[in-house]
């Protein structure tokens, strides 16, 4: 990426940063729903730890979004006081957890994308973005190693685990296309030298996904319909339920602290 060549409208820039922070926030929240419910203790702990990393990254991304926006909103304000239509996460991440296989497949498909995105953001023209990416990528490398490892073990496991992983892949595949859809906001950010054109990340993502799914003996579905809209604030009903739980305290007791 080249250094910032054009100035970016702060509202556009903040919106783009919310895409990063909302992805980590919503996935982090989904993973935290597993706490105390996982099939084995080690996986319960692993998911809670992954959620913790993602929530930590959310604080950094949404903190920067608030700073760029310049209206005095903090990361907490953005997480707890925005309505669903203001959220910018991709639809895949608000999918209900389903079974353990669905959760893991969603994690793997996103981790593989997340790593490529962060790799690219490490050379962002805005040093604030580059340093958050440099921090987060170390954590995400471990997320990807774990999710890829488990996708392979379960895909290439028993008949039951194989069929659940294939079902999960088939169900979630129509949502992955949204990662790579570029819109005006992505273009403005790319022109300013701050972030990549998402379409450019697809080849590397696909290579990782193909390699792992092949080892997992799973069949990669063909290109088909792409569910999208999350990046523009058009969400499925699932997000509303997440926010009802996540935002309850701040909505019921505004400004509550402890």
């Amino acid at each position: 990426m080249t250094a910032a060549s054009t100035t970016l409208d702060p509202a556009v820039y903040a919106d783009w940063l919310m895409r990063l922070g909302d992805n980590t926030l919503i996935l982090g929240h989904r993973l935290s729903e597993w706490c105390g419910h996982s099939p084995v203790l080690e996986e319960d702990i692993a998911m809670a730890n992954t959620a913790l990393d993602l929530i930590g990254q959310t604080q950094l991304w949404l903190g920067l979004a608030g700073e760029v926006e310049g209206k005095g909103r903090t990361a907490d304000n953005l997480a707890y006081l925005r309505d669903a239509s203001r959220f910018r996460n991709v639809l895949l991440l608000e999918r209900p957890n389903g079974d353990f296989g669905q959760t893991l497949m969603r994690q793997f498909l996103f981790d593989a994308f997340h790593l490529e995105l962060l790799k690219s953001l490490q050379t962002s023209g805005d040093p604030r973005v580059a340093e958050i990416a440099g921090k987060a990528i170390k954590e995400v490398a471990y997320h990807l190693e774990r999710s890829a490892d488990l996708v392979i073990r379960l895909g290439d496991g028993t008949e039951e685990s194989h069929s659940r992983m294939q079902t999960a892949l088939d169900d979630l595949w129509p949502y992955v296309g949204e990662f790579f859809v570029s819109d005006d906001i992505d273009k403005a950010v790319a022109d300013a030298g701050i972030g990549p054109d998402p379409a450019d990340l697809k080849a590397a993502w696909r290579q990782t996904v193909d390699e792992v799914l092949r080892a997992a003996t799973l069949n990669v579905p063909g290109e088909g319909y792409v569910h999208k809209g999350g990046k523009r604030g058009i969400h499925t009903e699932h997000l509303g339920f997440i926010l009802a739980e996540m935002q309850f305290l701040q909505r019921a007791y505004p400004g509550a602290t402890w």
Partner: protein
Amino acid sequence: MQVALDTVWDWLGEVPDPEIPVISLTDLGIIRDVAWDRETLVVTVTPTYSGCPATTLINLEIESALRGHGVEHIRLERQLSPAWTTDWISAEGREKLKAYGIAPPVDGTAADGKTVALAARLLGQGNLVIECPRCGSHETEKVSQFGSTPCKAAYRCKSCLEPFDYFKCI
């Protein structure tokens, strides 16, 4: 009065990490700088993991330790870059971790998310050898990538049969 910076480093070397109290904040390598800005002592701290819940507590402990030594004006600054790495854990810190039952990080083995390497590992090649902190055996196996905290992985010793934490490299 501006206390000598070496003295301040010594003080910080006595502040225990809240999660692993046998090592100090300086052993952990998270204190990146100490400097005087006129009458204010500025301590620059880097987080271990972005979501580390101990970060707030660590800042509080730094502040109360310094106040305890009579420093009146303190400013804590967060530094993200360069990102913290386990390479910064001191040699002394590593010995203390081991004595405490946590296998210290093996430098240069951080995850890079390369799934080719992963596939090789699943085939039994390039396995990382982690020494059991209790009996010293090399016959150990990973139970989970994530242990009691994000910074650790869960391992098991096949010789003495004890489970242990490995402070993984990042």
